[in-house]
C-alpha cells in the first residue's frame, strides 16, 4: 500500500491543480447544451499533441496559456533566434538568452516552470517539416508575423485533407497582430474559408512610386527605399541584401542618410531603416496577449467540445477602447488553395495528350474550351503564348504514358474553371 501513496497524492494534486478547468468539463455546460461530460475529454486534453508555430510575441503567450490550460504535449517550431529588442514582450526569454533559438529557450522555460508539461522545440523553418510531421498533431496554432509562412502552412494543411480519413483534418487556429489591431480565426481546412480565401483583406504595405523615390523624395522613407531599391543593386550587383545582417542595414542607413542630407530631409535613423526594409510593424504586448488568449480559448473549446468554437473570424481593435467583431468569412470558389478541385480520371496511357484534351472539351460536366496542362509546375501543353504553344505542341501527339506516370496529378487551367483542376490520372 505504501507505494500507492505517491500516485494517489499526485492524482489529488492533479485534480486540484486543474479544478477550474474540471469544473467546466465535469458538468453539462450552460454554453453548449449538447456537451456530454465524459472522462475521455480530460484524457484527451492531456494527451492531444498541439503544435504552436512561432515562438515570438504571440508564441510566448500561446505556449504559456496552453501549458496553464492543461495541455501537456506541446510542440513549438520557430527558425528565429532571440534579439535584445524581443525582451520587452517575449517574456519567456531573458537577457542571457539573446542569440539562442527562440523555440529551444521557450520550451525549456515552460518545461521548467509548469510541471508535467512537455514542450518539444523544433528550431527550423516550417517548410523543413513534411506532411508526416504535421499529421501527428490534433490542433495547430499559428502565431506568425509572416504572410508567406502562413500561406505555406495553410496550403499544406488544406492539401493534407483526405475525405476518407477524418484524422487528416487539422483545425488551424491563426492569430495575428498589428499594433493595436489583431485577429483570431479558426480554419477547418477544406471546410471553412482558408487563409488564402481572405488574402484580399490584407492591407499590404505598398511601396512608394519609383519615380518619387528616384527624383522627388520628401520623406525619410523615400530615402531608405532609394537606398534599398535603387542604390543597392548598383553598388552590390547580384548580391542579395540580407536584412538580418547589421552590416547591410548599416550600409543602407548611411546611404539613405547621405541622400536625406542632399534633399534636406530629416528623420532617417538606423531603426527606421530597419523598420522600412524589414517591414516591421510595432508590436504591442497587450494586443498579443488578447489575441493569444482568444486562440487558446478556441483550442480548448475545439479539443473538449465544451462550447461552440469560433465560426470563424474575430477581428479585434484596441484603437478606441476594446472592440471585437465576429463574422463568418466566406470560402471563395476561386480560391487558389481550397478552390482547387481534384478529380480522378481513368484514361488509357497509350492515348495521346491531344485525345485527353478532346475528351475534356467534350465531357458534358467539364466542357473546357482551351485547357493548358502542367505537371509539377512544368508545362506539358500551353494554349498561349504562341512561342510556348509551338515549343510544347509535340507533346500533344505523345502518349500520356510517355509524359507522366499512372496516378500522377496534372494541373489543368481553362477560362471556364474558377481557378484550376487537379486531375489525377490512373492509366487503365
Amino acid at each position, binding site marked *: 500500500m505504501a507505494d500507492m501513496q505517491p500516485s494517489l497524492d499526485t492524482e489529488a494534486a492533479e485534480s486540484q491543480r486543474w479544478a477550474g478547468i474540471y469544473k467546466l468539463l465535469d458538468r453539462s455546460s450552460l454554453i453548449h447544451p449538447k456537451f456530454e461530460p465524459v472522462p475521455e475529454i480530460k484524457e484527451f486534453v492531456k494527451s492531444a499533441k498541439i503544435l504552436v508555430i512561432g515562438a515570438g510575441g504571440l508564441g510566448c503567450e500561446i505556449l504559456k496559456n496552453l501549458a496553464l490550460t492543461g495541455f501537456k504535449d506541446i510542440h513549438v517550431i520557430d527558425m528565429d533566434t532571440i534579439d535584445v529588442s524581443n525582451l520587452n514582450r517575449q517574456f519567456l526569454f531573458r537577457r542571457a538568452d539573446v542569440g539562442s533559438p527562440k523555440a529551444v529557450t521557450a520550451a525549456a522555460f515552460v518545461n521548467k516552470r509548469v510541471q508535467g508539461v512537455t514542450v518539444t522545440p523544433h528550431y527550423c523553418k516550417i517548410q523543413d517539416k513534411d506532411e508526416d510531421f504535421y499529421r501527428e498533431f490534433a490542433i495547430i496554432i499559428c502565431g506568425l508575423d509572416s504572410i508567406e509562412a502562413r500561406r505555406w502552412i495553410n*496550403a499544406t494543411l488544406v492539401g493534407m485533407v483526405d475525405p476518407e480519413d477524418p484524422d487528416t483534418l487539422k483545425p488551424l487556429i491563426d492569430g495575428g497582430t498589428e499594433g493595436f489591431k489583431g485577429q483570431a480565426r479558426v480554419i477547418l481546412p477544406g471546410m471553412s474559408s482558408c487563409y488564402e480565401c481572405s488574402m484580399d483583406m490584407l492591407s499590404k504595405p505598398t511601396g512608394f512610386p519609383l519615380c518619387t523615390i528616384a527624383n522627388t523624395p520628401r520623406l525619410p522613407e523615400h530615402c531608405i527605399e532609394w537606398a534599398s531599391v535603387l542604390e543597392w543593386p548598383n553598388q552590390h550587383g547580384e548580391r542579395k541584401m540580407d536584412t538580418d545582417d547589421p552590416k547591410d542595414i548599416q550600409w543602407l542607413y548611411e546611404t539613405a542618410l547621405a541622400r536625406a542630407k542632399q534633399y534636406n530631409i530629416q528623420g532617417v535613423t538606423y531603426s527606421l531603416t530597419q523598420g522600412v526594409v524589414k517591414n516591421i510593424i510595432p508590436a504591442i504586448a497587450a494586443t498579443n496577449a488578447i489575441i493569444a488568449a482568444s486562440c487558446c480559448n478556441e483550442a480548448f473549446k475545439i479539443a473538449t467540445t465544451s462550447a461552440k468554437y469560433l465560426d470563424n473570424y474575430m477581428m479585434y481593435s484596441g484603437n478606441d477602447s476594446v472592440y471585437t467583431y465576429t463574422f463568418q468569412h466566406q470560402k471563395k470558389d476561386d480560391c487558389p488553395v481550397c478552390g482547387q478541385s481534384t478529380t480522378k480520371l481513368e484514361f488509357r496511357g497509350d492515348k495521346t495528350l491531344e485525345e485527353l484534351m478532346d475528351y475534356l472539351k467534350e465531357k458534358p460536366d467539364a466542357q473546357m474550351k482551351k485547357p493548358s496542362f502542367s505537371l509539377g509546375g512544368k508545362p506539358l501543353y500551353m494554349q498561349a503564348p504562341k512561342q510556348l504553344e509551338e515549343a510544347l505542341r509535340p507533346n500533344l501527339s505523345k502518349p500520356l504514358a510517355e509524359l507522366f506516370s499512372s496516378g500522377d496529378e496534372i494541373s489543368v487551367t481553362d477560362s471556364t474553371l474558377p481557378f484550376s483542376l487537379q486531375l489525377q490520372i490512373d492509366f487503365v
Partner: protein
Amino acid sequence: MIKIWSMKKDNAGVDKKKPKVSAAQIRVQKDLGELELPKTMKMTFPVPEDLLNFELEISPDEAFYAGGTFKFSFAVNGNYPHDPPKVKCLQKIYHPNIQADGNICLNILREDWKPVLTLNSVMVGLQYLLLEPNADDPLNKEAAEDLRSNRRNFEANVHKSIRGGSVNGVQYDNVMTK
C-alpha cells in the same frame, strides 16, 4: 474527441487536394494560357520548363518608339499574385519613365499592384508606356524635361537614341527591329 472530425463526414464539399505545385505556378499557367498577345508583342522563354521567368518583346507600330523592339524581363516569385512580377527593361533606352539600368516607373508594378491584375495587365501597361511616355513620373529626368518642353525635339531624340545614338551625352542601345 473533437467532434468536427466526425461531423465532417457529412460534408460532401471536401475534396482531396495535394498541392504539389504552388498557387503562384498555377496562377501563372492560367495567366499565360489565356493570353491573347497582340501582333506587337512576342514572348521568349529562355528555359521552356520555367514559366516564372521569361522575356517580352514589344515592337510598337505607332508613336515615338515605332520601329524599335524593346525587351523586358519578367521574374515572378512564389508570392505571386500578391507580389507583382519584377519587370526590367533589358536595353538602355531613352525614355522618361525608364532608367538606364532597366528600372521602370509603372504604377501597377509597385504602388498600385493588386492580385486581381494579371501578367496581361502588366504587358498592356508596358506597351502603353511606350505609346504614351509620361513626363510627370520621371526616372530619366532629362528625357522627361525634353518631352515636357519640346515634343518635336523629344521625338528627334528618340529617333536618334533607338538607332544607337547619343542624347544629352549618353549613348543608348540600338534597338531597331531587325
